[in-house]
């Protein structure tokens, strides 16, 4: 057991746990934050995406040891921000959600992208979301949602 200190959704946390656990398991089991999903479990689908120091990261591929001293924001924490409201509304309006399993990851990916590039081109959106799989929408509606978020949240990013 090792003491790991990190910031989770804005709050300082100290946990004593096995540092070889995956961040995804710690979030879901110890903190009941089930918005991050396990899809593929090997960093290919992005359903487990979180913000690590403000940038998208796959929590299924992060050992707890590597989180010590870092800042983690999950979809639950991000849902309390203005940026989330804009992205959520744009996904709803443009039809970027169907079954919803990939949606938390898609929203985290959108935030990570817009934070670095507030007005991305279609190509840049595809690259920004390239680590997130959706089996329902065919992606066109998601790309449309991101463009709408960039337009509506013009002053936020």
């Amino acid at each position, binding site marked *: 057991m*090792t003491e790991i200190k990190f910031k989770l959704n804005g709050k300082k946390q100290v946990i004593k746990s*096995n*540092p*070889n*656990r*995956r961040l995804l*398991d710690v979030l879901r*089991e110890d903190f009941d934050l089930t918005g991050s999903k*396990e899809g593929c*479990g*090997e*960093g*290919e689908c*992005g359903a487990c*995406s979180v913000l*690590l120091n403000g*940038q*998208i*990261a*796959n929590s*299924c*591929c*992060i*050992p707890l*040891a*590597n989180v*010590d*001293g870092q800042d983690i924001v999950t979809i639950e924490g991000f849902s309390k921000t203005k940026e989330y409201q804009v992205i959520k509304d744009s996904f709803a309006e443009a039809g970027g959600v169907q079954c919803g399993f990939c949606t938390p990851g898609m929203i985290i*990916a959108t935030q*990570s*992208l817009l934070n670095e590039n507030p007005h991305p081109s279609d190509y840049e959106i595809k*690259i*920004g979301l*390239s*680590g*997130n799989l959706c089996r329902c929408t065919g992606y066109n509606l998601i790309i449309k949602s991101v463009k709408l978020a960039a337009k509506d949240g013009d002053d936020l990013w």
Partner: protein
Amino acid sequence: MVKTHIAKTLNNALEILNSGTYRIVAGGTDMLIQNRSHTGLPIAYKDDVIYINLIDELDYIKEDSKNIYIGATTRLETILRSEKAPNILKDIIHEMAGPGIRHTATLAGNIGNASPAGDSLVALYVLGASIKCQSIDNTRTVKIMDFIQGVRKIDLKSNEMITEIIIAKQDFTRVIFKKVAPRLSDAISKLSFVGAIKIIDNIVEDFRIALGAVSITVVRNEEIENKYRGMPLQEFKDNIDSVISDYEPIIKPIDDQRSNKEYRKHVALNLIKDFIIKS
């Protein structure tokens, strides 16, 4: 249960490495998958582990007049965004995984993993990169072609770790990267190719080829390259069949779930041909 250490300074890491035999984990994006356990259970490492990704002093990209120096904990995404990093390396990193993995994975990890399909390796072979290995009482630098000895076999002693990747600054007339894979992101290569050529006054001053996933390590052969260096460009192009027959015996791919050996060999030779024709 395995012993686990989290090192936050280089000195601390080297001291720990000097005290036993450890599996070194940086971003962990490959190590977690290789040692994957059931959902909810800790990663099933078979050896004791030292985590090094939080060593900030190794997170850098520096340069001087001759070389570019990339620290061992520098994330792939940092390299992708760096103005100092060679373009060919950035082209490759752009096609490695997705942003979420690139924010935590490292170049040193891709080297230490020593997969024949490691995408960054083809660029590092063509660029003639060197690997700096450090232990508590020694520092040495090894050429990547010597450092990687086989599938997941590297020239690293149990008390050493990779601390830096050194890449000489060099100019080529044309450098091409081609990854053959089912999709742009998140795909392991069926094969990968880097070709580099430097032409001055219609003479082939330099010519280099590296191929990934076609043998137990990345393939680069300086003997073949030397044969064509110094040749007038037209003569080099006229000798295309000879170049292909030189490479043919050293391309020894295997069948696996991603592709088969016939396809890999055929495409590898076609990529070399295409590179020469378009030079």
